[in-house]
């Protein structure tokens, strides 16, 4: 028995050796069987670090309608009671850190997208037209926002530059990635600002009559290159049926000195649900061959809620949830400069019950901050947080 336990410990060692995790904390102060928190957002940017402060945003219905909330965690403390960001129906909030404890959050409210400098500042409406699925990115001292905005019959992707002047947030420019009206739906934009200051935007695009992750680059954040496909497997109708494979929810992260990495859900293996795929732009502003992220143990299982986080030091981590062990757990895989490593369950976000919907960020010291949903139908869903440092 002891030998078996020892063997199991040895086998588990490589998977657990990478990160040392803190005890999970609960972020949301109000829970209940009929309260449903959500961490869904464009580019899954629901947690950010600014100075020593962690900021987490989510949406829940505790007040009788969907509203967006922000909770802050100063260093060496628990999460403070959350503050409500919205007044009307609110969805899919995101947050980025500006340093020195300041954040910018953005969200959809009453069919428009808004942003706000926090902890002090007032909300700024970013769109006049109907818009949703806003995301944010910061780099080279510039704040960028992207969202899906109604233009004719469909939504298209708009990118804006935001600025902080005299403790107020303002919008400097906003323009669509493509000038023409969209011929089918576009949505779920992701943004990354590379080390050289160039901006990459990726999004879901249905112009090919199936959902394809598309990407475009800009040197100045104003003028964008013609879109290209992220998925390297071209597909079309089969014997005159359908239009092509499915894929959804692209996410982006700046990585290394000039690189950008994309991770998305891809259904090229259409019998095993969505898999997590990645593509790398090493600084050429072209994404290369697609790489499958999850290992073989996750192969016959649908993956959900995938995202990627990276940093200038070259760290790169993909996260998602899947139910390979019977119930949804949060998994991560780290890039080792050649391939994604073995999948590792996030301690505290794995085991009995449903743990899902990860959002994450890497701070300037390389620590990984992960937030997820811990669903309990009777007691209510908790928004949970843990921090990990390299061993």
């Amino acid at each position, binding site marked *: 028995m002891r030998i078996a336990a020892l063997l199991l410990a040895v086998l588990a060692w490589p998977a657990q050796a990478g990160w040392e995790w803190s005890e999970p904390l609960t972020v949301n102060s109000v829970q209940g069987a*009929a309260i*449903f928190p*959500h961490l*869904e957002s464009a580019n899954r940017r629901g947690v950010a670090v600014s100075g020593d402060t962690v900021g987490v945003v989510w949406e829940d*219905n505790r007040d009788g309608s*969907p509203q967006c909330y922000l909770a802050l965690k100063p260093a060496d403390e628990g999460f403070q009671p959350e503050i409500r960001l919205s007044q009307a129906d609110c*969805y899919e909030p995101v947050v980025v850190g500006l340093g020195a404890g300041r954040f910018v959050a953005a969200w959809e409210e009453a069919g428009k997208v808004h942003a706000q400098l926090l902890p002090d500042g007032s909300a700024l409406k970013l769109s006049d037209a109907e818009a*949703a*699925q806003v995301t944010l990115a910061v780099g080279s001292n510039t704040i960028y926002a992207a969202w899906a905005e109604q233009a004719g*019959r469909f939504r298209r992707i708009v990118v804006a530059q935001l600025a902080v002047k005299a403790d107020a947030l303002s919008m400097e420019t906003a323009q669509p990635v493509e000038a023409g009206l969209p*011929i*089918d739906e576009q*949505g*779920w934009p992701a943004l990354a600002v590379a080390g050289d200051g160039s901006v990459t935007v990726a999004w*879901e695009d*249905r*112009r*090919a*009559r*199936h*959902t394809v992750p598309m990407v475009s680059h800009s040197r100045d954040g104003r003028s964008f290159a013609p879109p290209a496909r992220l998925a390297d497997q071209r597909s079309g*109708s*089969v*014997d005159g*049926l*359908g*239009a*092509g*494979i*499915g894929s*959804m*929810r692209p996410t982006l992260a700046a990585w290394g000195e000039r690189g950008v990495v994309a991770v998305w859900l891809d*259904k090229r293996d*259409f*019998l*095993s*649900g969505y898999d997590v795929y990645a593509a790398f732009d090493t600084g050429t502003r072209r994404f290369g061959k697609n790489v499958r992220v999850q290992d073989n143990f996750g192969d016959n*299982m*649908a993956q*959900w*809620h995938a995202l990627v986080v990276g940093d200038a030091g070259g760290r790169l981590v993909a996260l998602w949830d899947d*139910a390979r062990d019977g119930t949804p757990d949060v998994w991560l895989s780290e890039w080792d400069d050649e391939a994604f490593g073995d999948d590792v369950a996030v301690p505290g976000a794995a085991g009995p019950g449903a743990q*899902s919907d990860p959002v994450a960020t890497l701070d300037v010291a390389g620590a990984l901050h992960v937030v997820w949903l811990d669903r309990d139908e009777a007691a209510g869903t908790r928004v949970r947080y843990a921090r990990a440092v390299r061993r």
Partner: protein
Amino acid sequence: MKLITMLLAASSMWATTVLADPPPGYPFVDFDAGLKAARADGKPIFLYFGRYGCAWCDHTNKKTFSDAGLKKLYSENYALVYVDAESGKRLTLPSGERITEAELGARLQAFATPLFVYMTPQGDKIMQIPGFKTVQDFRDYDRYVRGGHYKQKTLLEFLGGKS
């Protein structure tokens, strides 16, 4: 110029003809409307979880749902709901939780499209069936659901006992 405008308009209309939408002629509605109608009429829900551009959805539409008798059977006896597997459109579950259509796939652990979900008029799941199915399959599922056999037998037990 007029011709170009007409061509653009035509191509725009063609582009919005969703290949994997519900089959033509069936009264499919979105999740919230379907749940409301099912509760009002006391009809079970037949939920078609399809994906934009999905070849097997297209195949099922053309090969199976083109059957006039099946169209009549399902149109008259079910609240027909269509959900787009990759859409960010929102729906409200019977629990009151608001999620996106794509998130419904995660909750159902959907691994392939089309996926067909039968539900009670109150929105409780009876069973989910993935992949291409024939007219006879859907007739069998209808007998299983509307006959109330799901309360006593698994689908396999029911199908094993059919004449």
